[in-house]
């Protein structure tokens, strides 16, 4: 190392940068002592060295810290929230499907049934069933006498979704002609929700053929024999209520002043329970 008045500036800069070892620093200091006019130069170069400002700090250092365990929790929480949201959505969908199915009302008047005339019918003509004792109407009684065979008074529902009422005394069973459980006997017709008024309480004037066509036929309605508890009528005389036999719980169309509801499983269960109770408690 050779410092002189031509190369002193470089050494002064190296001195200011701290790039000189101890011996080199001492040599520079001796040179300055020997050349005091260059001391000012050395002082200025040293003025250009910046000192760090300790008051300048990065605030909120915790934003920079990392915690792997907290990251895992966040992911877990996210998945947990997603799973909970999906479960709630499915639950609400199921509840809505059930209730909407139950409350889906199909209001369609099927027929207007006039109260039948109360007639005195012989007890020997009463036909019993699993549900209630029935008596044929006068017309069927006549036919029976003429033909000598029973004429079923059943009608097939045109659709499984046919509206029904829960009241057991206001429905009629229907079967397809030629396709009934009682083997193709005449008089069996399809009863559809008619668009016209039924003039007689005992007749339904519309029917559906198996091929889908319609024809107007007469279908008798079986009145149900009930006990007459009225004191003003002679004993032994029975009164008749407008009722329908029911041999199939699920294939009935209910008439007259009833709201028809869409068949559902839940309603079917309730209906069966109601009918059972009705059978048990109904008067014979």
């Amino acid at each position, binding site marked *: 190392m050779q410092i002189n008045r031509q190369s002193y*500036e*470089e050494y002064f*800069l190296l001195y*200011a*940068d*701290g*790039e000189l070892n101890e011996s080199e620093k001492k040599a520079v200091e001796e040179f300055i002592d020997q050349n005091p006019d260059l001391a000012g130069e050395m002082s*200025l*170069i040293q*003025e*250009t*060295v*910046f*000192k*760090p*400002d300790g*008051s*300048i*700090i*990065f605030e909120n*250092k915790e*934003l*920079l*810290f*990392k*915690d*792997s365990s907290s990251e895992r929790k966040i992911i877990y929480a996210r998945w947990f929230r997603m799973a909970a949201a999906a479960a709630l959505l499915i639950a609400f969908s199921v509840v809505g499907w059930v209730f909407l199915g139950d409350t889906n009302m199909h209001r369609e008047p099927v027929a207007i049934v006039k109260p039948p005339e109360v007639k005195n019918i012989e007890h020997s003509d009463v036909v019993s069933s699993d549900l209630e004792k029935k008596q044929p109407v006068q017309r069927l009684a006549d036919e029976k006498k003429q033909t000598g065979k029973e004429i079923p008074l059943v009608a097939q529902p045109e659709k499984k979704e046919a509206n029904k009422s829960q009241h057991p005394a206001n429905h009629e069973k229907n079967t397809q002609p030629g396709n009934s459980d009682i083997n193709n006997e005449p008089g069996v017709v399809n009863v559809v929700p008619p668009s016209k008024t039924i003039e007689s309480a005992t007749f339904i004037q519309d029917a559906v053929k198996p091929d889908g066509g319609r024809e107007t036929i007469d279908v008798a309605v079986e009145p149900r024999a009930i006990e007459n508890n009225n004191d003003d009528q002679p004993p032994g005389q029975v009164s008749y209520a407008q009722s329908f036999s029911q041999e199939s719980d699920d294939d009935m169309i209910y008439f007259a002043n009833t709201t028809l509801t869409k068949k559902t499983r839940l309603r079917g269960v309730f209906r069966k329970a109601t009918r059972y109770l009705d059978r048990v408690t109904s008067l014979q």
Partner: protein
Amino acid sequence: MTEKEYNNCVKEHADSVYRFILKNLRNSEDARDVVQSAFEKMWVSRAAIDGARCKSFLFTVAYHQMIDHIRKGKALILKEDAVKEMPVYNRQQQQTRKILEEALSRLNETQRSLVLLKDYEGYSYEEIGEITGLSASQVKVYLHRARIQLKNYLVSPENILE
């Protein structure tokens, strides 16, 4: 680098990195963004970083992000709050400090970075070269030119010290 080493690096070097970037950008918000980004990159690459060299890695990433930030044309706004006033006990020192800050702002970003890395952090020419992508001799030449420029500004007629 483990998670513990990373967090230690945050505690030891976050302030110095922030100070270095702030002196260059002279904008506290931009400086914070650069520092956070640099630490995030270090966290992502922690598996390949030796814990003992986290400081040089940090300064390297921060320096290059700072250069990118400057070259994208973002204005360097000199804010009063970006340069805190040190408590000085005589007028001359306060005057000298102010002039130096002005002189530093007149340097280009490379010279300014070299001066700050050398003076603030005490890096050698070789270490500065690793951070800035320059050779040691280049660092020496650029740094000496920067100091001469600063000295000449100090003795300029408008800044003659009393």
